[in-house]
């Protein structure tokens, strides 16, 4: 299992540096947009400025595509090589999950560090809100850490199960998972929509944490079950 985790970390730049590249690029774009508003008449530090800046979730969404790709490739292109090196399927699935957990913790800590710096520098000395935003807990590390950790882990494991389905069933695998998920979601909406107002009124943040945990567990088990009988391609 540990060897498989090391195999994933063998591509250090992709795993550890590229997410920070992307975060940095999105931060620069967010700052440029803030400057645009500044030049348009908004004033840093005003209530409207702070509320508008903190409502920008770009920094989180920018990573979603990359993280899902990272999860897909962690299985689809690494699994055949891992078996060639002598990994068991069980060890590969467990080692990949351990790698996903480690990457999630690393990014959660990186985001926490950047948030601390942002707050300590009074938002980069110019009132720019990049990490101190609502979707990341608005500067509350007690919320930011689980949000980033569970969010990243969800994306990686979802990518992993799609990669595993491709290993098992070829192109039909991801199609099957995509279609099944869409059908389940639509049926859930059909069932719940009459009570939507009550559900929204009763919503608690921990529901999202539970939903993420369910997605992670289902994806990880699904990955293992699919890889157990997958042919090496």
């Amino acid at each position, binding site marked *: 299992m540990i*060897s498989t985790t*090391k*195999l994933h970390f063998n*591509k250090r730049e992709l795993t550890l540096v590229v997410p920070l590249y992307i975060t940095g690029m999105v931060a620069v774009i967010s700052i440029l947009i803030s400057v645009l508003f500044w030049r348009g008449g908004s004033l840093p530090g005003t209530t409207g400025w702070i509320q508008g800046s903190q409502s920008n979730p770009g920094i989180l969404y920018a990573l979603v595509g990359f993280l899902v790709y990272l999860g897909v*490739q962690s299985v689809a292109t690494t699994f055949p*090589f891992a078996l060639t*090196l*002598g990994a*068991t*399927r069980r060890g590969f699935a467990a080692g990949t999950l351990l790698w996903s957990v480690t990457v999630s913790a690393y990014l959660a800590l990186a985001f926490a560090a950047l948030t601390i710096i942002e707050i300590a520098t009074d938002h980069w000395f110019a009132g720019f809100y990049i990490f101190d935003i609502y979707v990341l807990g608005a500067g509350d590390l007690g919320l930011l850490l689980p949000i980033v950790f569970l969010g990243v882990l969800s994306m990686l494991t979802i990518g992993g199960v799609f990669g595993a389905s491709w290993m098992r069933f070829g192109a039909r695998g991801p199609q099957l998972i995509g279609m099944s998920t869409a059908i389940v979601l639509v049926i859930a909406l059909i069932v719940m929509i009459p009570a939507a107002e009550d559900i929204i009124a009763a919503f608690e943040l921990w529901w999202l944490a539970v939903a993420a945990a369910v997605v992670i567990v289902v994806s990880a088990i699904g990955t293992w079950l699919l890889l157990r009988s997958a042919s090496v391609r």
Partner: protein
Amino acid sequence: MTNAIEVHSVTRTYGRVRALDTVSFAVPEHSILGLLGRNGSGKTTIMSIIAGQDRPSSGQVDVLGHTPFEHAPTLAQISYVRDNQRYPDDYRLHHVLRIAPDFAPNWNCDVAEELTDGFRIPAKTPIKKLSRGQLSSIAIVLGLASRAPITLLDEPYLGLDVTARALFHRMLLHDYGQHPRTIVLSTHLIEESASLFDRVVILEQGGVAMNGDQDDVLASAWVMSGTKDAVAELVADRPVLQRNTVGGLTSITADFALDDATRIRARDLRVQFAPASLQDLVAAYGSSDTDSTDVKVAERA
């Protein structure tokens, strides 16, 4: 001598396709087995099963006394790189050399370095952009530097130039001499690698056509040529693997012991005979009919 690999009645089907059909053979410890046969004969399939990368539909494979599938201690003793091996995205040579020792307990850096230098594998080019020969070179580096007790080499010569093939032979024999191991090597370059083999298994359409010590296998295989009638009289109803007829002349590859009486009769009939090479034998077993040349000549006419 104990067997490092034992294959018992292994059948592997993919849907309606029967890739292997009740295949049985054994590979003694510290020997080199040549796994031969035409494309699609089942060589890669049986190697995948021996390597624990696939499971038989029925039958049993034991490697070092264990079923290899999902058995970590056994898998750590096996090296198997496919002829169409996939590598993770953006991998370069240094990625392979950095991670391989974590999985191969006997990994030898000196062997890896000598081979990568000898094969001139580009260090900075992504693996997915390497040529066929360079991909084969990486597979050979993994196969030999791992010094795995069970080393499976799947078409290691694909795309290799003559200098690289010579280096591979030299390094294989040198390292095998110093660190004996059990090697299964599949190849179509039979003449070039025949001297390596202690034993051979010839697969044909998923079944074992021939299995044994190379010397024993070749001892009873003959190529005979002469006039059509003379060869027919000599062979009578004995098994002929392949027959090529052009005009009144016939050449056959046969698999039967040549006793003194038959030799004398052959001389009388002016039938020339010579021991069949391993390549003759593989080609003969792979031939779809015993009168292929006749048919082709007839078709042309």
